[in-house]
């Protein structure tokens, strides 16, 4: 259904191209036949216009160039010759090729287009540069789209709309304009009769009335001007902001002040009339300074402003206290975070030096600086925190659109929109979230009829929630769709060679298969979640944020994807360790404890990399071996026990130095293929430490283990 107009365009375009061919051949015979030229121009024009309308932008922009030439031919500025017809025919064929490409989803050949355009331009007379810029502008500028930036503040405008008498002569309906204004907010119109002539003189088809409109709305002035866009040359329009919505004068303006503000009387006039003691409005009319229309309009204005201020006062009482905020460009914040990062580095150097000097005074200053730096760091990072809700509201639209595309009925529920996360993290979360949500809608939620048949409500639910957990945020996406079958996942993974037939996987491990590269659970990649991007990309994106992702599912009842994301990317609490004198950084969030590893322990395990930690066996990775470090390990090594994605794993290092504030620096493009290291940092003494990517190390160990097992067999 949705493709109907596109289909109609294609059919139409093919017909027009056939016509075009005939016409061009005819033109070659009689190059002066203006009727044929007109026919060619129109065919091009229609292809261009309709093409743009239905999203065939390549076709539209190319055809625009050809059309331009024929517009000049039509106006006698360019003469037809054999060469022009030849190029035109090629251009026609090119349009057809573009159209064919669109139909079979093939890549459009844009190079040919550029080449043809260059050839066509040789036929154009060299216009004055200024002129060219002008026509370019007219042809290419899309209609002025008025951005209606909605603020939350209700503002009141005084709109004075004074149509020229002939305004009705081309079908304009005043009532439609006033109605449109009324749709923008609360609106009061007062017709001004000042220009009304006597009945004999009055031409009933002309407009003698002007309007004074008071509009209270959140829209901006452009939105109001947009209402009058078709009559801007047929009327005088004045728009004044008379109440900005901010806390202003406490008192409603007095009638006299309003009239002065509108420039209809002066303070002097008022003072003079005030000497007498009737109602000010009557007095001003009696004095002939204003007429009844103006009084009526001003009275309305007074009422409106009073009402608004009343409303605002009661509203203000509801939402105490009012916090003021300041807008700052994001780059300035990034700069600040960078500076704080450097400060943290310098501070740890200071602490180190102070510790070495054994100088009590220096030591206490260093401690003070450390405390301050920590506070500075926390408050700076806090500034960059934004509620994740802004992202949530975008998804509302996404869910709606996808649901209607798939003809599914979906209710979108969110929780924890106020949860705050670093701005950069929120931005980088967008794509992975979109992908997961699409998967939920596409593969998770069943068609309404299917759901009903299974005794589920027709309306499926997709839940998106966020909550704080320590220094990270948990994001959960849940659907009540058909869920995943472990058996099916296994089968698929086997078929794709991701696992071996003899691999035994528990339920959790089965679900994690979905994140393996090259894995996709649906036989047919649908247009929505397809595009050849799998969940492995999502997992990598989350890992890049130093987060983790897990999936659980109950067949028939739904799927839950849970992500744990650190609050910020810039600075992390970490554990500093050394291997053969070089420093490495392990994110502290993952660390559970540190235990010793002696030669005796190693022997006891018979060559298997397993350590006994309080009664349970924990596998470990000797980092010396993993990184290919030569030389002997110290007699007593340390195992840093970590937990990532629900699994415990130890990393064997020479020494554990202690906790460290790590300012993360990217390693640069040269190292982009380095999987096991996620970044670097500068230590207090100026040397460099590398940050370990635990998830990748774990993954590497798994693969290695499998290879070892195969070798053993």
């Amino acid at each position, binding site marked *: 259904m949705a493709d109907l107009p596109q289909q109609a365009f294609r059919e139409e375009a093919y017909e027009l191209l056939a016509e075009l061919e005939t016409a061009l051949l005819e033109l070659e015979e009689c190059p002066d036949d203006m009727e044929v030229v007109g026919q060619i121009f129109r065919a091009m*024009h229609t292809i261009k*216009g309709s093409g743009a*309308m239905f999203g065939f932008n390549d076709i539209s922009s190319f055809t625009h160039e050809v059309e331009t030439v024929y517009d000049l031919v039509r106006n006698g500025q360019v003469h037809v010759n054999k060469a022009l017809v030849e190029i035109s025919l090629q251009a026609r064929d090119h349009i057809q090729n573009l159209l064919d490409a669109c139909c079979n989803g093939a890549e459009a050949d844009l190079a040919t287009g550029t080449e043809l355009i260059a050839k066509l331009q040789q036929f154009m007379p060299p216009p004055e540069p200024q002129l060219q810029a002008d026509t370019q502008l007219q042809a290419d500028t899309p209609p002025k789209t008025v951005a209606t930036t909605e603020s939350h503040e209700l503002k009141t405008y005084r709109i004075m709309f004074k149509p020229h008498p002939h305004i009705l002569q081309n079908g304009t309906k005043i009532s*439609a304009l006033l109605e449109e204004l009324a749709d923008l907010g609360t609106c009061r119109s007062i017709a001004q009769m000042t220009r009304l002539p006597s009945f004999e003189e009055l031409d009933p088809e002309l407009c003698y009335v002007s309007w004074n409109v008071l509009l209270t709305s959140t829209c901006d002035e452009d939105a109001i001007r947009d209402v009058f866009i078709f009559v801007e040359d047929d009327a005088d329009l004045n728009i004044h902001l008379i109440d900005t919505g901010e806390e202003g004068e406490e008192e409603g303006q007095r009638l006299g002040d309003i009239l002065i503000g509108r420039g209809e009387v002066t303070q002097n006039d008022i003072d003079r009339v005030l000497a007498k003691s009737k109602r000010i409005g009557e007095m001003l009319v009696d004095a002939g300074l204003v007429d009844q229309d103006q009084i009526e309009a001003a009275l309305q204005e007074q009422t409106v402003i009073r009402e608004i201020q009343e409303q605002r006062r009661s509203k203000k009482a509801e939402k105490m206290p009012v916090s003021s905020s300041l807008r700052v460009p994001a780059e300035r914040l990034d700069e600040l975070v960078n500076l704080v990062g450097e400060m943290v580095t310098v501070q740890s150097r200071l602490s180190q030096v102070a510790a070495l000097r054994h100088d009590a005074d220096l030591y206490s200053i260093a401690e003070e600086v450390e405390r301050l730096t920590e506070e500075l760091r926390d408050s700076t990072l806090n500034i960059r925190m934004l509620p994740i809700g802004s992202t949530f509201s975008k998804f509302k639209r996404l869910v709606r659109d996808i649901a209607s595309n798939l003809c599914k009925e979906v209710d979108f529920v969110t929780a924890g929109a106020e949860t705050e996360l670093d701005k950069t993290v929120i931005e980088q979360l967008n794509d992975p979230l979109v992908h997961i949500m699409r998967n939920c809608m596409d593969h998770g939620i069943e068609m309404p009829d299917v759901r009903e048949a299974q005794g589920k409500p027709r309306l499926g639910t997709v839940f998106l929630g966020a909550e704080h957990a320590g220094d990270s945020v948990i994001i959960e996406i849940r659907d009540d769709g058909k869920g995943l079958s472990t058996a099916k996942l296994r089968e698929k993974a086997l078929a794709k060679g991701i696992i071996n037939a003899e691999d035994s996987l528990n339920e959790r491990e089965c679900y994690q298969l979905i994140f393996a590269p090259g894995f996709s659970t649906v036989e047919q990649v649908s247009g929505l979640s397809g595009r050849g991007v799998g969940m492995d990309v999502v997992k990598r994106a989350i890992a890049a944020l130093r987060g983790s992702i897990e999936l659980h599912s109950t067949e028939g009842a739904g799927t839950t994807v849970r992500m744990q994301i650190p609050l910020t990317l810039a600075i992390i609490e970490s554990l500093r360790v050394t291997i053969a004198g070089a420093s490495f950084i392990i994110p502290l969030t993952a660390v559970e404890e540190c235990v010793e590893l002696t030669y005796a322990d190693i022997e006891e395990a018979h060559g298997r990399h397993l350590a006994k930690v309080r009664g349970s066996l924990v596998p470990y990775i000797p980092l010396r071996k993993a990184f290919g470090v030569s030389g002997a390990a110290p007699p007593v090594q340390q195992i840093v026990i970590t937990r990532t994605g629900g699994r415990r794993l130890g990393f064997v290092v020479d020494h554990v130095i202690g906790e460290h504030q790590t300012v993360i620096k990217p390693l640069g493009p040269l190292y982009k293929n380095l999987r096991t290291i996620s970044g670097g940092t500068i230590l207090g003494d100026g040397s460099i430490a590398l940050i370990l990517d635990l998830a990748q190390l774990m993954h590497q160990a798994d693969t290695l283990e499998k290879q070892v097992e195969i070798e053993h067999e």
Partner: protein
Amino acid sequence: MAKTVLAVDDSRSILQMVSFTLKGAGYTVVEATNGQEGLAQAQKQKFDLVITDLNMPIMDGLTMVQKLRASPSYKFTPILMLSTEAGADFKAKGKAAGLTGWLVKPFEPQKLLGVVKKVLG
């Protein structure tokens, strides 16, 4: 009573889109594929609104608008033009011919409905 709209365009796809959009919003739509056909339809019945393309074979949009305005029953009828340009030049020419408003291609169906409401109320 449903308002009646005469839609005139030589592009079948655009005509279809305009027609589909307006019918969906409850208007009654009659289609014509050039200015002359449009005039003939307008004589057969009185429409509340006319929407026309500019470049069409046989009779172009502006000529049709001029002829419509000259007839007593279309003196005050709103007439919209769909065009690929929106320069001051075009607007002045359109106004002089008797256009009520215009809509620049490409446009979204929603935008079309907005402009129709703007002139029809």
